[in-house]
């Protein structure tokens, strides 16, 4: 497996969707290629850091205001 092939498997790998033989190849590649090992680890961290941190705040005050505006708008619509 080349580095490019490795990258093309990343998505399915993270989703746990690669077949056992491909999984073995990915793992073997990472073992011998320190660059891809880092890419794997830091890409995983990139995803989790965006998933776990609320990048944009959604304060209760904004939520209530938006919610009320949405419902008001819809109440004027045809059903």
């Amino acid at each position, binding site marked *: 497996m080349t580095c490019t092939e490795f990258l093309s498997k990343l998505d399915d790998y993270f989703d746990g969707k690669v077949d056992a033989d491909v999984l073995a190849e990915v793992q073997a590649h990472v073992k011998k290629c320190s660059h891809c090992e880092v890419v794997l680890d830091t890409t995983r961290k990139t995803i989790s850091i965006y998933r776990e941190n609320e990048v*944009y705040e959604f304060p209760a005050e904004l*939520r209530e205001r938006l919610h009320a505006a*949405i419902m008001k*708008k819809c109440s004027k619509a045809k059903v």
Partner: protein
Amino acid sequence: MPAIQSQVAEEVHPDVALVARAKLGDTAAFEQLVRQYERQIFRVAQHITQNREDAEDITQDAFFKAYEKLEQFQGNSKFSTWLVRIAVNESLMRLRKRKTSRTVSMDEDVQTEDGSIPRDFAEWRPNPEQLYGQSELGEILRKTIQGLPPGFRTVFTLRDVENLSTEETAEALGLSVPAVKSRLLRARLQLRERLSRYFRKKNGEAKP
């Protein structure tokens, strides 16, 4: 090693009953759907437009359109995917209006090789959360995703922030599955590369 899982296939989604009731004119059922998804829709809109006022408008418009078009929702997809699709379209439209000189579409950016080949191979040690405080980290994350082309940003947001499956993302964006996959890879690698400037293990050199 732990894989990042996306949703498993579900049985009958609880939204199905709510949508059915809303279609019959049950406002409370629709309101419950609004409660469930207003945060997600706002977040998607803000990620794509990078503008809070726009995101507020888009959230209102998206739910309003969904309400008006509810009859047309056939239930072939999840209600949330359908809703996200409406919000994405509204967001992209808003971006186009704002940047009259630049085209904004899901088809752009495909040619650029920039950042799609990893260059920075430094480890991230210690973990970013240990390196930066919450507000500083938030600032870095916002700045970094802002630098991505809108098409990449959108795919990353739906797949990785909102945890939609590849198929759902493709449906919400009107893209093919391979197109989503290729954009997602580039988006992730570009973000990784940019974040690495902040998070890479320092060897005595100055902070970026």
